[in-house]
Each structure stands twice: as C-alpha cells, then as structure tokens.
C-alpha cells in the first residue's frame, strides 16, 4: 500500500500549477472541499486526501497510540508531499485539519510556502488559569464522545429518506444513504477525543509560515476570543473575520471563502 493509496489522495487542477493541498477536519472527509477546489483548478495543482482513519483512507493504518498525537497526521501529510515531490505548497486546512497543516509546516517549512486556515482553533478547552477562552468545558467534550457512541448505532443501516416526489423504491434513493462523513465508530470516537482535547497553542505561537486565518463571527465551536488570540499570538498571521454562521464556511458560503483566499494568495 502506497502513501497515496493509504490516504485516498486525489489529484486535480493544473498539473504544472503551484500545488495546493487541502486537509479536511474532524467528522468528515475530503468531500467537504468540493465547492472550493473548482475555483482554483484552472491555475493550480489541487491535491485532496482523507486523513488516516477517515473517509476512503486505509482504516487499518489508524493506530490509536500513534494517532493520539496530531503530529502523526502532520507527518503523514509530509509523506504525501514527499510522494508527490511537492514543494512551495499552499496548505489549506479546516478546523483540526488546519492545525495538522500548521504542524506539518512547522516541521517541514522548506516544503510549505503558506497556510490557509479555515475556522482553526489551537485549543477547544477553556484554560481559565491562562485566561484562554477556548469555548468548551471538559464535560462537554466527554459528552461529545458519548454522543458519537450513540450515533453510530444506526449508521450502517441508514436508509435514504423518502424525498418528496421521489418513488420510495427508486434505486438512486437507496444509494443515497448516509455515506458521507462516516467512518469506523471507534476511530471516530478516538479522533474526536484527540481533536477536542488537543492543545496546540505553543505550536501556533511558533508558526513557521504566514497564515491566512478565516474565522466566522457566528461560529458555535470557535469563540471570537480565539480569533483574537491568534491575531495577537501567531507570527505572520492575517486573521479575517467572515460575516457567517457556523463552523464550515467552505460549505455554507464557499464563494466568500474563495474570494478571501483569492485576494490573499493573488494570481498563481
């Protein structure tokens, strides 16, 4: 199994263009980027992939001991850059994927030119002592892990809903099961823990490459205080606050995200 197979790497865009590698976040897979990547396909080389253990990646390659550290995902990202011989890469990451991109850039700054971080957070947990307002208490994160356990009960047998006007026996309706964003429940639960208990403030403060940070002003997962923290503490960071609701602007307002990225990156 090659690195590219392990992480279900998909290539697109302009073959000789400057490379752009997209890293998805917790709870989903590379399909989250499908409304953003087309905007850059004409001028850049597009690489999307699934984090080990998610989506179409090799689930057996997920090692709970090794992947308890986000650095393992970052090292695998560097392996993908190596396998494709990519340099001067623009890494685009969402949420915990943005943290993984940052860790990779810090470890291999010679391979990465810049970062685009969509709705990142260096730490989701509150740290009252340090005056850090991450947004979540420990019990809430424990509650999330319990919720993940509850919600895999039906995942393997989910039937498509009857959508108005569509015959119930239509084969396309049967195919349309909850196949997006599903993965092995145990991996999901483990990665959820790793994601939400991670505290990478020290790594954010040592950012080796300039980053564009896109933050939604109405994001239930990342409070504005975290965006302010990144503006103050991350070297070379440009924090842009989008007038948007939710944690996934690349899905809800993709044109806004594309415009902000385009303005920041300039023509390829």
């Amino acid at each position, binding site marked *: 199994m090659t690195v590219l197979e392990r992480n279900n790497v998909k290539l697109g865009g302009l073959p000789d263009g400057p490379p752009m590698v997209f890293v998805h976040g917790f709870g989903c897979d590379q399909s989250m980027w499908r409304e953003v990547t087309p905007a850059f396909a004409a001028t850049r080389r597009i690489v999307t992939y699934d984090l080990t253990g998610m989506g179409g990646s090799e689930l057996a390659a997920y090692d709970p001991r090794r992947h308890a550290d986000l650095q393992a995902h970052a090292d695998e990202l560097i392996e993908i850059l190596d396998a494709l011989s990519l340099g001067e890469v623009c890494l685009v990451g969402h*949420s915990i994927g943005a943290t993984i991109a940052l860790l990779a850039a810090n470890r291999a700054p010679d391979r990465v030119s810049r970062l685009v971080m969509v709705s990142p957070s260096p730490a989701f947990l509150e740290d009252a002592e340090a005056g850090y307002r991450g947004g979540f208490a420990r019990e809430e994160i424990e509650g999330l892990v319990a*919720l993940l356990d509850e*919600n895999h009960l039906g995942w393997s047998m989910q039937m498509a809903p009857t959508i108005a006007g569509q015959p119930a026996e239509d084969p396309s309706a049967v195919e349309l099961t909850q196949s*997006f964003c599903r993965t092995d429940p145990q991996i999901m639960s483990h990665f959820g823990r790793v994601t939400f208990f991670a505290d990478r403030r020290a790594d954010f403060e040592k950012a080796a490459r300039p980053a564009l940070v896109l933050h939604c002003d109405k994001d239930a997962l990342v409070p504005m205080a975290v965006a302010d923290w990144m503006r103050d503490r991350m070297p070379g960071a440009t924090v842009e606050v989008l007038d948007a609701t939710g944690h996934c602007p690349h899905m809800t307002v993709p044109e806004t995200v594309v415009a902000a990225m385009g303005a920041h990156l300039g023509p390829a």
Partner: protein
Amino acid sequence: MSYIVGGGFDTAAELIEDAPCGIVVTDPDGRLRYVNATLAHWLGLPPGGDAARPTLASLLTGPGRIFYDTHLAPMMRLQGFAREISCRLDTASGTPLPVLLSGVSRRDAEGRCLRHDFTVFDARERHAYEKALQQAKREADELAAIVSSSPNAILRVDAAGHVRSWNAGATRLIGRSAEEAVGQPVARIVALTDRPGWFAEEMKGAGRGAEIVFEASQPDGRELEVTMAPIGTHGLPGVSEDWSVILRDITRRKHAERRLKVILGEMRHRMKNTLGVVAGLARQTLPKPHAESFVSRLQALSAAHDALGADGAEDMSGGGTAADLRLLIDTAARTAGDPARFEIDGPAVRLTARQATSLSMALHELVTNALKYGALSCESGRVRIDYRLDEATGRLSLRWRERGGPTVVPPTRRGFGTKMIGMVLKAELGGEIDFEFAPEGFSFEVVFPTR
C-alpha cells in the same frame, strides 16, 4: 370512502404547529427560520424566539452543538439529508431532553440549497432503552474479552456432554480448534486418564446448582484442574441445561508440590538424624541424670516434628507444615507411660510448626513434673486437659489440671522446667500463662493467639 393524499388538506398548518413532534426550518447555514409550537414548548422558548439562540445548534446541549457543526451540517450540505441523529435539547428547565433529529435540505431547480427542514422526535423512552442495551453490550463485550483472552480453557457443554463453545485458551491448552471441538463429546475431546465418561459421571454425581472441582491427568501426562458449574440464564439457575467447564493446566503446580514433598521428607529425615547424634553426644559427655533429662527433652522436640504433617495434610498454601493439637497431647500422654490416666477434651485445632514445637516442649515439662512430684507420681493420680479455640479472636486456651496426687506444696523456687515453659510459651508464642498450686492438685493454663 375516500381521503386526501398529499396537498389540499386545509388543516395542514394547524397540524404542523401542534404536531406530536418538533418541526424546525433553518437557513442553509443553520439559522432558525421557524420553530413549531411543540418544540418551542419542549424548549421553553418565548414567543418570538430567543435572540441568544439564533441557530439550530444553539438549541442543543454543548456536545450536540459540536456534533451539529462537525457532522450534521456537513451531511446536510453534502448529501442533503440526515436521519435519526441522537442528541439532546438544551431546555429551559435545565434537564436535557434526548431527541432524534432528522433533516432534509430543500434545493431549487439549479441545486442551490434553499433551506433545511428538520423533525425532532422525543426519544426519552428509546434513549433509556438504548442506554440499557449499550450497558448490556458493554458488559457482554467485557466478559467476552475476558473469556477469549483467558489462559484457561473455558467451554460451554450441553447436558448431553457435547461441546457448544470453545475459547482460544481451550485451543492452546487442548490443541484442538473450535471447529474440531464444537459438537463433539467433551469427554472425548478432553481425554482424562482412566475416565472415558468423566463429564457424565461428574454431572450425575452433583446436584444442579453445585460447583464441581476435581483434578485429573491427561494421557500425555499433563495435569488439569477441572471446574464444572451449571450455567444460569439471566441469573436464573435451571433455565439452561448447559454447563461451564473450565480447565486449568496445573502440571507445573503439581510438579512443584511433589518436589516440595520430597524436600520436606529429606529435611525431616536429616533433622531426626541430627537430634539422634546430639542425644548420643549428650549421653557420652553429660553426667547421667542430666543426660537423661536433656535427652528426654530432645525426644519431645523430635516427637513434635513427627507430628508435623503426620496426617498427610500438609498445608502448602501457608508455606509450612501443620500439626493437630490432639496428636501433640496424645504423644505427651504416651511418654507419661499410661495414656489412660489422661482425660482430654477439645476440638480439632491445626497449629503451625512453631506453635507445635513450643507447645510440645511445654507439655513435656508438665508431664515430667507430674511424674516426679505431681499427680502421676502415684497410682490414683489423673490429669485432665481441655482446650478451646475462640473462632472470633483466634485465641487458644489450654488448661492442664492434676487431681488425686499427693498434697501440693507450692515450690520455694522456680525450677528449670517452669522457666522453660515460660520461655517457650511467653516468648515464642506470645501467650499468657498461669500456674496454680492448690493443695488438691497443680493446675496450669495458657492462652495464646493462633493467628
């Protein structure tokens, strides 16, 4: 008779408002546009909504908000629906309400997302049931993990003696795979030397509800400890006719036990020889009267060692041998010449090696004294010994009472024998001792802890 299917039903609006489930409409990014009366009531939302709770995510408890943003929102965008997502409503009462959330996204002709429609079902009952189910599954998984990783062979055997399940430990221990073993008679798959029908015999011999434990060897020389117990279903014995059979390889333990027994025998033999040599040296070097009393004390010591483990029930678990108190007293009575002059009363009490030797030495001194000066110095004298073990405190009390001898005169000085009794019983056993020189007969009492 006819009824309406689909649109054109004029009470539809009322139905949506008071439906037995919550109904929510949001913008594509999750902002609330409509919450029906049922859901508003569950949440305790004021009419006109709550400005602090503008999104569907904000109606959920903390974990649900994260789940919405990491899972539900992407699913609604990518595949256009979500089914029966379990989460909790953050209600005004403060008690989270478990619900099942289903949603479908509505799109225009070009496929642009217009809004999301959600239904919210009260899942309190289902939630409680699933919780119990999950708990049961966790427990079952845990037990299964214990059984499959156990180094012991753990089998389920039906009343006819056929193997019904066979764990990995059984495969390792017996050398047959589960495929080979399941369905076969257990007595054939697990062969025990000279016992071709062991399972049926043991099962017949035991009443249901009882556990059977026995040791047996296999034709290849391996030794097993076999534990059989009827399997209860849901804690009800007798519902299932099956038995659990656990096989433990005790070859090494048995081997070690045999070695220990050999070593112990050798030790005892050498000690007796040494005592014999010491007695011989004493006879040749000491003046005769001294030599006699010294040698008789040595013999008492030697007899105490003989009593240790004499009944074959050596206590391996305690790390030493044990002796029965009655046996020690009988030995002392025999050295007095006529055991019929002793009246002995007490329960079976096991003593450690240390307790046995100390008590034997003390008994020897008492017998010697009685023969010289006390009840045993004349025909009519008798000795009564009674002892009791207080189970609660573990304290043993032993009383020696002489009657029918010459009138007792309290001694003016302590002889060596009395000193020795004090030495072995007080210092060695931590006992309390009491001598009484009544004119009608000498008596003595000792109380010491046995554990």
